């Protein structure tokens, strides 16, 4: 990683350490009472209001539940590539029973299909004012095992 320091775009979303990038996982909270899983740190269960939550690392693989394409530059302090390129966003369902809203990476915008298999992609998204690499999450088409 050289001397560059990394930070997560939202601290409670990514596992530590933040390198190597291939080992970083999405983090969630599981309700000890009803088993419902949430993305990031949850102080209580939105489903059963239980307050006993445990941290879990979420699966790396999922399937696409729905998607759309951002055709216009998002408003405000968007940190994506300049000049703006349309990008896909989808809801990716993981085996834990949670769907994560995430950008879709490494695919042709006209080849996206509901139900396609995806895998987690952790990338340096931009460099912050202190020179640190800010890591964001997305999902990309899952590599077939023979290609691995």
């Amino acid at each position, binding site marked *: 990683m050289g001397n560059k320091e990394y930070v997560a775009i939202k601290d409670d979303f990514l596992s530590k350490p933040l390198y190597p990038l291939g080992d970083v996982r999405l983090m969630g909270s599981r309700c000890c009472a009803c088993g419902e899983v949430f993305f990031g740190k949850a102080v209580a269960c939105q489903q059963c209001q239980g307050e006993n939550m445990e941290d879990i690392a979420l699966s790396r693989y999922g399937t696409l539940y729905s998607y759309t394409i951002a055709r216009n530059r998002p408003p405000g302090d968007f940190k994506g590539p300049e000049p703006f390129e349309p990008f896909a966003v989808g809801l990716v369902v993981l085996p834990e029973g949670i769907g994560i*809203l995430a950008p879709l990476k490494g695919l042709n915008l006209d080849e996206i299909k509901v139900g396609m298999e995806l895998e987690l992609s952790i990338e340096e998204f931009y460099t912050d004012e202190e020179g640190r690499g800010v890591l964001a999450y997305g999902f990309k088409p899952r590599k077939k095992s023979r290609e691995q």
Partner: protein
Amino acid sequence: MREVSIVGFGIHKFGRFDDESYIDIGLTAAKMALKDAGMNWRDVQVAFYSRMYLPATSGVRTLTQLGRTGISIVDVEAACASGGAALRQAYLAIASGAYDNALVLGVEKMPRGFMDPSQLYEDWQIKMGLSQNPMYWAMSARRHMEDYGTTVEQIAKVAVKNHRNSVYNPNAMYQKEFTLEDILNSRIVNDPIRLLMICAPNEGAAAAVLCAKDIAHRYTDKPIDIAACIHKVALYNDWRVPARSMSARVKNPHVTELASKEAYEAAGIGPEDLDVAEVQDTDAFIELQTYEHLGLCKPGEGGRLIDEGVVEIGAKIPVNASGGLISKGEPIGASHLGQIYHIVQQLRGELGPTQVPNAKVGLAHVTGAGGNCAVTILKR
């Protein structure tokens, strides 16, 4: 609980008004409502003011222009359901016996151009670009298409209907008819949602004067009764803005199902008893899905309903005969009260080509960010 009636209504056209402040816009609607009820401002006992994008204590800053009488004036914010939440406060204030009358005023003057995303989204969502409201509408639509075979043409037909109805509404921002081809060829915003399928944020105001039903005859010979006024927030798991994740395990009822069920029970009616309805159509798809959530058809049959023309003027249950938010625009704090205005006109029999003959029962529905939802049922 006492019964509550609407005895006066006022509106400021929805659109863009560079020469008018939010105070000017609000006062136009408030004065018209008071005049309609034949009530003086000095006799109003309490006021609720719905808005989302206006500064602190906007209600006081607007209504005290009419004179400082010392009454309670409270701002209410519940995203797209702000007007419903304010109407409910006024309804409860009278129903409880605490007050005999109330003024409800919804006002909005939204900034031009892109809406400030920090009103609804966290910093990381804005940086990642997950901060466009139509993204969430589009993904909800895509899944409905996948689950039920709903088509883009069916979604576009909702927009065709609402734009066609708007031609007769002088208070709409756009009064222009579009063909199915126009809608389907308009610019893509977030696939499959196109520009002519969504509404514009804008400016406008609407106001209602409420009083206890037993004194309504003092103000009008055409009182409209509030049979139900419900505001609820969604349970876990729906496509609300600004969702970061959703459960794939639990399937709770949609907030519109929850709110309309409560409203039907309070009013002692079912969806089959409605003569007319105004529903949230910030995008054309959500209107189609709302048919299902209000019980106008079974889950997955929204597309069939629009194909069969059941929701057209002159058919079984006209929906958004006013032109809907797609043509009126969505001044968020005023949108529900604007719907109420159309229903009041329908029940009073004041409309032209969009009049539903002999309309007796109407429903107004809004839903939006955070899972806020309001359903009001009016009767004459």
